């Protein structure tokens, strides 16, 4: 019944619009306005550009200022301060251009709207002007590029040797985390070793993997360099830690990396934001299938001492699941045994 009423309403509305349209067409024919070069509508349109400039421009500025604290995510890494700085410098430069060009673009239509008694100025070229507005953007862009390039080189430079290594592996639809253990060296992996009990395909014949351990949360120390070693098991993913200003694709068959220095512990950020629930997060930003929007991991930034303590408390893969060492060489089993004993002490 409602559907029928809505349909009737729509039909009525359309017929009214239709009548109005026909009437205005006939009126314009009677008035002969279709013979004129520019009708009264020309003035209306010229004026509407001004209205648009003021109204929409005002709306944009009001909202940009009102919402600033909301869309501006707090920064929690050293390079993040640099890139955000670049962002806002670029915003200032482009903002000025945006405002000036739009004021001109919308004021000209009003000012130079058609008048029968006026003739447009024949002004086909001016080389000086062309040179100026080629050169000025070139210089401004050069400055932006060079500052950007310096930041980029620093960010993508090789990680310091003492950086804490964390491996992040993406798969449909989650991230797995692996720490290298005391030796700070991750053991080898081979995707063909992947199985239900060994989801990361770790090669336990490699001595370095013996002390590797998993973690449900990415725990990292504040103020010390951290190196994310990133890989994917099935399709492309992308590690995105918005507060760290960190993003790097996870590519099957091609390990990638990103290093950074966190600057605020989770606790500090909680205090700063006055939000006791706050956590740093990792999301996926490369479309990877149905669960693309659910690949969440939490990053916990702690004080370095706390981090060291946490490291010693973790259980290795082999401790958690001794079955992993089955069928492997004797030495690995021995090391696993030693670890087990240590653990029980």
């Amino acid at each position, binding site marked *: 019944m409602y559907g029928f009423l809505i349909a009737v309403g729509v039909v009525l509305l359309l017929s009214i619009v239709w009548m109005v349209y026909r009437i205005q067409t006939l009126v314009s024919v009677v008035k002969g306005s279709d013979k004129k*070069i520019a009708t009264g*509508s*020309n003035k*209306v349109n*010229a004026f509407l550009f001004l209205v648009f400039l003021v109204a*929409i421009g005002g709306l944009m500025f009001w*909202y940009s200022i009102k919402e600033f604290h909301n869309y501006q*995510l707090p920064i929690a890494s050293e390079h*993040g301060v*640099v*890139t955000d700085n*670049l*962002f806002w410098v670029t*915003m200032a430069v482009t903002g000025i*251009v945006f405002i000036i*060009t739009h004021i*001109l*673009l919308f004021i000209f239509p009003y000012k*130079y*709207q058609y008048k029968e008694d*006026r*003739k447009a*100025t*024949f*002004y*086909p*070229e*001016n080389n000086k002007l*062309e040179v100026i507005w080629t050169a000025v953007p070139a210089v401004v*862009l050069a400055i*932006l*590029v060079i500052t*950007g*390039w310096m930041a*980029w080189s620093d*960010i*993508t430079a090789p990680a310091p040797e003492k950086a804490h290594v964390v491996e992040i592996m993406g*798969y449909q639809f989650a991230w797995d985390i692996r720490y290298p253990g005391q030796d700070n060296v991750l053991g080898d992996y081979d*995707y*063909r070793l992947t199985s239900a009990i060994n989801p990361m395909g770790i090669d336990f014949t490699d001595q370095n993997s013996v002390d590797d351990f998993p973690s449900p949360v990415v725990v990292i120390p504040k103020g010390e360099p951290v190196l994310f070693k990133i890989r994917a*098991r099935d*399709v*492309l993913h*992308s590690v*995105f830690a918005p*507060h760290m*200003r*960190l993003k790097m694709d996870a590519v*099957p*068959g*091609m390990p*990638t990396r990103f290093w950074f220095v966190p600057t605020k512990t989770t606790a500090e950020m909680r205090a700063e934001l006055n939000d006791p*629930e706050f956590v740093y*997060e990792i999301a996926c930003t*490369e*479309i990877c299938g*149905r669960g*693309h*929007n659910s690949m*969440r991991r939490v990053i916990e930034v702690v004080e370095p001492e706390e981090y060291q303590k946490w490291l010693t408390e973790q259980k290795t893969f082999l401790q958690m699941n001794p079955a992993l060492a089955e069928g492997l060489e004797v030495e690995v089993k021995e090391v696993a045994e030693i670890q087990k004993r240590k653990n029980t002490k």
Partner: protein
Amino acid sequence: MATASVATHDTAHDHHDHEHHDNFVTKYIFTTDHKMIGKQFLITGIFWALIGGLLSILFRLQLGFPDMNLEWLRPLLGGWITETGQLDQTFYLALVTMHGTIMVFFVLTAGLSGTFSNFLIPLQIGARDMASGFMNMLSYWFFFISSVIMFISLFIKTGPAGGGWVVYPPLSALEQAIPGSGLGMTLWLIAMTFFIASSLLGGINYITTVINLRTKGMSFSRLPLTIWAFFLTAVIGLLSFPVLFAAALLLVFDRSFGTSFYLSDIYIGGEALPNTGGSPVLYQHLFWFLGHPEVYIVLLPALGITSEVIATNSRKPIFGYKAMIISMLGITILSFIVWAHHMFVSGMNPFLGSIFMFLTLIIAIPSAVKVFNYLTTLWRGNLIFTPAMLFSIGLVSFFISGGLTGIFLGNSAIDIQLHDTYFVVAHFHLVMGSASFFGMVAGIYHWFPKMFGRMMDARLGYVHFWLTFVGVYMVFFPMHYIGIAGFPRRYYSWTGFEFSNMYTDLNMFVSVAAIITFAAQFIFLFNFFYSMYRGRKASQNPWRSNTLEWTTPIHPGHGNWPGEIPTVYRWPYDYSKPGAKEDFIPQTVPLSATPESNLPHEQELVKLELEIMKEESEALVANEAKES
């Protein structure tokens, strides 16, 4: 200089006014008339724009009203509505993918270039038709086959391709990864193959026609900027589409024949695949080698149309004609060497990132020059706001807004945070999507009288413009905020993360704006189809424009001009020339006929022009004597 390079005349084409006897099939379906082929592209493009727009409304419903019960869409979407009345997550990804594919390729490439290059090139350069009418016909029908296949893929059980419009492998290569990578992806690849063939056939034709078939006096320095834009667009397409074909072909091999071009070290569905040694990044390089020039393939024609419309309706010559051409040439060349700015965080060598950042920001310079030239063209003009003019001014606005955000994204350090967030979505929808769309609509309003011999209703055009202009800004401007806040693209819902668990109000606002903007397009549709049959009859030159197409009859037949093709004596932008009686002097008016308005250097050309005209007429007389 211009007059000296008059094309060699050929008297072989004297008898072109004989009647063609076309039946329905040869006139409307398998036609070789460039004007009809242009209209075929236009109608197909409009059809696709509606489908593409509708898909975006569907996913905007999910993003703006995540809790809404969509049960009422079940008659349309069937099983893609879950039992709880929600949009299926996989189908959401398919919607995003198909929206992108359709809009970029089928609407803004075929619908824009296909329509206006076909329709305008012969008319504006003074040619009877394209260099090869048959190839031109093939171009449309390849596009048609491509459209049919892509359309069918929307209805298959596993759904259309769903890996994003860029269809990056391994996601697009592995059926286990997402259902859309099964039959849907196969159809996508077949459709795109036909599409590429269509683009190449069209592009070769446009280039050949512009080079070879210009009328007497139509030197390159007298070409309207529209033709320059179409010409360079065709060059870009010709050089870059084959690379997309290569990318697609290797993907076909990986999908169907067990090769490992893009696949390596994959464990999926409980099974380790045998592929090793491939690189997903290779695909990205190949794809963006087309993908970035593609941006200019959709944008340049729109800029060309805008140049023409703004000059005509400002009653002023376009400012910096030569600078405009040089800018377009610069954009054409640079467009090939900036592709990897889409891949700053793809894992490629960061050194490459530095190089591509430099190259990318260089391309901002010719773009800036174009904007300043448009502004100066408006300055001290005598502006007539036809709907085409309004849409052209709108285009310039979008080109600025979207272009400026490109400076953020082209900077690799800033791109780390913004990559694949809504900031990117806002950026390209403004600078490439909306700007090109506005160029296309401006073109339709402007050349409708030439296409159908009738005028579109201007008032409906004004309403259409203001609703769309405000609407587009209301849809895409808020996305900047969402993007700066870090909201990733292609997310079905953002509530799973604390950092993005906000802005539900803003997303709702965007969705409402999108629905209103989409609805406003029906005003245009009505105007378009109604005016085709019932619109006011057009005069021969309704916008009092200089270019050649307005010298043809109101309903030009196949061959465009009933008699001789007119000769061109001047550039196309002699508007409001000091001393002239009217505020426009068509290209066909000899300089010798307008001594009152000639500039000093033109006065010198008059003598040369008269000499050439004398020679011409002597040759003509001699020829006629020979024939009789």
